[in-house]
């Protein structure tokens, strides 16, 4: 960084009244100046709101008296108590967890398959690679609406075909039925239908994200490695297991963290698909309901804090025990 660079202006042309700043001081100032707009925006719209959420979570505030809310309000644990003891709190936490783990797994799994399959050359590869990304780039409102219609018992082709070709007795309300009794070899199993549908949606919408990252990494794997394995007589699955997978592991670990965080916090997908009904009430939808149905800002903030705290705990567990590789790789 510090290299010989001509002075930016000769003193003769630009006389300075005070003693000139050193190079590193000037650089320091410029750096901070260039970043200051970012700092201001992030501070005002992100950092302060987060701190404020913490304060709101410990005050009894409803939308009506929000104008009087300030730093020096009356602090209380009532919100947390309300949130932790309200019916459905634990079940929504479990729902969030199941939803997050399922969606993370499926998006990475299918992303990996897509990356492996679309890696080699074939006619039309560029177009196929681009099309695969469509679910990810399309607006969430449009694709959730599309899924609702596709799966609708009234309009959708899925139920129509299910009844016509697969011998279903009647249309299945995929997004509004909490449980569906399936009989497998005479066993009757209750499956959480709406939750599974939402997880499938997430897998569909976000596998392109994993695909992008995994493909980028796959293309960086030197060809000699695999060629050597082929010469040695390794089967494709063996060469995948022993050559590609170790190379992909760091990206998979990173994707797991990213997808987990994003899905855990996700609001719009579930809200738009089911409105949080039929056993799909994830915590972020609960926050929204506290805010808009009950106008209870304090409780909503407390619930949001619980969400953030849960995420942090899970991430710490993951980073400490399950993914020791991530830290090494990030150097």
């Amino acid at each position: 960084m510090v290299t010989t660079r001509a002075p930016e202006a000769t003193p003769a042309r630009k006389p300075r009244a005070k003693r000139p700043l050193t190079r590193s001081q000037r650089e320091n100032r410029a750096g901070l100046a260039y970043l200051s707009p970012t700092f201001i925006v992030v501070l005002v719209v992100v950092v302060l709101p987060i701190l404020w959420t913490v304060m709101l979570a410990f005050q009894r505030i409803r939308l009506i008296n929000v104008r009087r809310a300030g730093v020096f309000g009356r602090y209380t644990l009532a919100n947390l108590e309300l949130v932790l003891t309200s019916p459905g709190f634990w079940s929504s936490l479990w729902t969030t967890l199941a939803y997050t783990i399922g969606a993370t797994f499926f998006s990475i799994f299918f992303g990996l398959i897509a990356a492996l399959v679309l890696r080699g050359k074939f006619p039309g590869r560029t177009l196929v690679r681009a099309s695969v990304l469509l679910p990810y780039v399309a607006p969430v409102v449009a694709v959730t609406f599309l899924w609702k219609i596709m799966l609708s018992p009234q309009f959708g082709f899925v139920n129509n075909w299910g009844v016509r070709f697969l011998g279903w007795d009647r249309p299945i309300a995929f997004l509004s039925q909490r449980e569906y009794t399936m009989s497998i070899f005479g066993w009757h199993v209750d499956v959480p239908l709406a939750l599974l549908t939402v997880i499938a949606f997430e897998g569909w919408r976000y596998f392109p994200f994993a695909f992008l990252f995994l493909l980028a990494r796959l293309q960086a794997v030197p060809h000699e490695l695999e060629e050597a394995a082929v010469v040695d007589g390794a089967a494709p699955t063996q060469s995948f297991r022993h050559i590609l997978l170790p190379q992909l592991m760091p990206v998979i670990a990173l994707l797991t963290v990213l997808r987990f965080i994003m899905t855990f916090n996700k609001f719009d997908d579930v809200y738009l698909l089911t409105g949080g009904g039929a056993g799909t009430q994830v915590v972020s939808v609960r926050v929204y309901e506290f805010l808009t149905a009950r106008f209870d800002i304090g409780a909503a903030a407390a619930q949001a804090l619980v969400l953030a705290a849960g995420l942090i705990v899970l991430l710490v567990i993951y980073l400490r025990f399950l993914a020791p590789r991530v830290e090494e790789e990030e150097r």
Partner: protein
Amino acid sequence: MDRAIVETRVLRVLRWVVIAVLIIVTLFPFFYMLLLSVRPIDELLQNPGRIWAGPAEWTVRTYKEVLTSSAKGGQGFLKFLANSAIVSISATLLTLLVSIPGAYAVSRLKFVGRRQVHFLFLAVYLFPSILLAIPLFVLFTRLGLRGSLFGLTIVYIAQTVPVSIYMLRNYLSTIPESLEEAAAVDGYSRLQTIRKIVLPLAAPAIMANALYVFMIAWNEYLFALLFLVENRADWTVSLGLAQLSGGIEVSKTVLMAGSVVLTLPIVVLFFAAERLLTEGLTAGADKG
């Protein structure tokens, strides 16, 4: 037979099967969206299982209804499109204005706290937007910014600047510094160097970035819902579609036309700049 040979043969077939499934799974829903948007509603209700309709059966009345202003009995999506465009374009421009100098500072300049900047960005990324939603809802209500497109734009800037800086920084660090040093020898000031040397060289990354921010802003739903829901004239396309699809007054094929109107700009942009975008998004990821 040898395991390697068997597997190679099986996988060769399986690969094509998987490619076909991938294409169907990703493209068919969008084809279905287009198809439904041009089918008359009564015909759809009679034959929900049909996935093809000849041009003779197509209708454009759905598009007419969805685009006509609500004063004239339509759904007013033209107005929503304009709102979305205003918010997305201004969010894109302002984000670039903020993040280009920021990315330059992070990649090139030594300053106090340079190493800590990353944590700040990580925090933005980590915290659920629903967590920010509450205080911003309160704050913007107080400032009178709730219900204004301007307030929404500010939120989008804050949400996209960190990622934008991260993407640009990765690209800037690939530009050799000797170029800038040469410019300095020629007597360019730092701002001149950025404008005349760095910006032209980073143009592909900046374009990719602009598209990325535009997409986020165009597709966003939660904040639009929280801030703009009260006044129909302020709705963005995403919000408008979501609001109307909840009710039963508007027929589903008309809403499908609305979905097409919402999706089309993004898909066109995406295919126009697909390579730029995918490379920009994963820049640095291939380093592990």
